[in-house]
């Protein structure tokens, strides 16, 4: 049935025919019947990666197939969302090997965007932990692949934005934990140089991420808070919690009821940041033990916070620059703060090495921030793209709704190889999205 759909940025909004399936037979039927479709998970990518005139939603294909509680190996259908997985694995002493900043994404989406977390420099991206998966090709055939068997298909599916086929089943390795809590350290940095020094000083920490104030100019340009974390051991919990160290967080969420005018969210995050930054007990650093939800998913506490940007929506801009291009980072941040179009906060992380043909992460600094859609924005982002390329960086397709094909081309040296594999498994370009058409990954 036709309906209006959009991903997390509410930009663009399109009319699409959304199909669902609960059983593999029906998926095969849909794939054979439809011409020009894209698999869709929970629509948490920001832009147009999972939009097309027909989408095949995996959300009803969400069964847990096996969970080896001794070995920490988990097998499920691709439409299962991470929040449901956490409910099952955490009480048994396991955690996701890699998690993005929201738990409301599907396993299929985690593979297709090859998502990264705050631990990329230690644990790599999601696909590094995938042992095996099934992919249903455009021909309707199902292929099981591992990094070694049908390795080309495996490699092009991780980060391949759905273009090789519909991922239907995934087996991946979990990470052992003693408790469901995180030992957190927050450190204040007065400016960007200090922040980068701190990242290096604390590089042994499993989890790290920083919030940067993009508006501050002068000597405090780049003032920020670095957040570091480790899974807490039982002995680090206060005695009350020690008899139930793997407890799940209580479910409570507030819903953002409707689209707010776009000025509301900014002051909100400004206030949250300033509150933290100037808080009396935050001299230089705070150390505490908190639940995994506020550490990994602070934004999930407000369902539909994206509506805070209003009806016109927003785009998220995320790029990575090689470690040696710190100057590029400074230049881009300056541009953003001068122009004043962006959100107040930007998120900075460090990526470790990664070997893959189409996944976004590569060693360096990655910065992400939101831009409410406004006149002049697209031109400005094109300008930023050129700086990113000039410093040897690239953009994340999962956040993208607007980049030009040449930006992708220059940022991803293995792009031709990727396209060849897509052509091999999706020869008639039956599987295509608005994004793949725009980026000329599929030809119109």
């Amino acid at each position, binding site marked *: 049935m036709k309906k209006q759909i959009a991903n997390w940025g509410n930009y663009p909004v399109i009319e699409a025919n959304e199909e669902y399936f*609960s059983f593999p037979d029906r998926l095969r039927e849909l794939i054979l019947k439809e011409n020009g479709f894209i698999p869709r998970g929970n629509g948490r990518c920001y832009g147009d990666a999972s939009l097309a005139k027909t989408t095949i939603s995996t959300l009803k294909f969400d069964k847990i197939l096996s969970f080896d509680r001794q070995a920490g190996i988990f097998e499920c259908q691709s439409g299962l969302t991470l929040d449901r997985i956490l409910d099952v694995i955490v009480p048994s002493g396991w955690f996701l090997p890699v998690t993005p900043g929201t738990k409301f994404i599907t396993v299929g989406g985690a593979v297709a965007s090859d998502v990264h977390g705050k631990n990329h420099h230690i644990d790599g991206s999601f696909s590094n932990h995938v042992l095996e998966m099934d992919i249903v090709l455009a021909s309707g055939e199902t292929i099981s692949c591992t990094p070694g068997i049908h390795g080309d298909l495996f490699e092009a599916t991780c980060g391949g934005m759905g273009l090789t086929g519909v991922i239907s089943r995934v087996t991946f390795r979990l990470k052992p934990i003693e408790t469901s809590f995180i030992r957190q350290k927050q450190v204040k940095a007065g400016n960007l140089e200090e922040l980068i020094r701190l990242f290096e000083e604390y590089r042994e920490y499993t989890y790290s991420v920083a919030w940067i104030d993009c508006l501050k100019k002068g000597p405090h340009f780049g003032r920020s808070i670095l957040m570091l974390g480790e899974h807490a051991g039982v002995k680090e919990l206060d005695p009350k919690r020690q008899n139930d160290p793997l407890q799940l967080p209580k479910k409570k969420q507030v819903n953002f009821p409707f689209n707010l005018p776009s000025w509301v969210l900014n002051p909100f995050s400004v206030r949250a940041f300033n509150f933290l930054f100037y808080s009396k007990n935050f001299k230089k650093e705070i150390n505490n033990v908190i639940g995994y939800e506020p550490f990994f998913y602070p934004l999930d506490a407000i369902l539909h916070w994206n509506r805070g940007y209003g009806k016109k929506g927003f785009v998220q801009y995320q790029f990575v620059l090689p470690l040696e291009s710190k100057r590029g980072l400074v230049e881009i941040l300056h541009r953003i703060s001068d122009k004043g179009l962006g959100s107040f906060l930007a998120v900075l992380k460090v990526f470790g090495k990664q070997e893959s043909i189409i996944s976004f992460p590569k060693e360096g600094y990655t910065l992400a921030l939101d831009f409410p859609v406004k006149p002049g924005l697209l031109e400005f982002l094109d300008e930023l793209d050129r700086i990113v390329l000039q410093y040897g960086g690239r953009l994340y397709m999962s956040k993208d709704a607007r980049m030009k094909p040449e930006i992708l081309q220059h940022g991803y040296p293995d792009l031709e190889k990727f396209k060849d594999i897509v052509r091999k498994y999706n020869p008639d370009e039956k599987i295509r999205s608005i994004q793949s058409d725009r980026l000329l990954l599929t030809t119109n």
Partner: protein
Amino acid sequence: MATILILGATSDIGMTIARKFASGKFDILLAARKPEQLQPLESDIHIRYGVNCRSVAFDALQYGSHSEFFSSLQPKPDISICVFGILDDEEQAFNDWHLTERMIHTNYTGGVSILNVIAKYYIARKKGTIIGISSVAGDRGRASKLIYASAKAAFTTYLAGLRNKCFKDQVHVMTVQPGFVYTKMTENLPLPKLITSTPEEVADLIYKAYLKKKNIIYVKWFWRYIMLIIQCIPEFQFKKMKL
């Protein structure tokens, strides 16, 4: 541990009912035409909720097999819920007796056949619960749901009679009247968002109503009033309406 039998378990509503009762620590018996399709749901339920879950073959239209089907179940279910149903294109069915007959038999005759067997067993033991999913469509006949609505009306009436018949033997019968629900059955129909439920909402309400031993529930509650209003329209006027 108590067991629930779900007849028509491959349905979108049936699968969510299975998860809901499993979360309440019921063991689950899934009955469907193609039980092999349900293996993933079996493992899902077992892993999430730690209860037993298995699937058995069942076809609502094979009346002759129903008695044997039920006697082969071990352990016997404490609750049996009848979820299967079918909604074909009514215009096509009007012109094709085969389709009309299948719609009547799936929505009515099949339910009567299997529930008679189960009711006899529960009556003899003086305990058990039967839940039947009918539809608000059965509350008034209309052109666009000619056969489906009449079969559901018959099924609703059967459930009311069965409730009356079983009452003295402590067997409880609950009728569920869903309005619009987003499922496979309705995926090509434009449903008004405000009054359409999700299968999860249906399963939640059925579970709560089961615990409270309700007789008849509408899902959601306002459908009772929507249908009351529709039933109040005088026939001379109703027959002229396009519904």
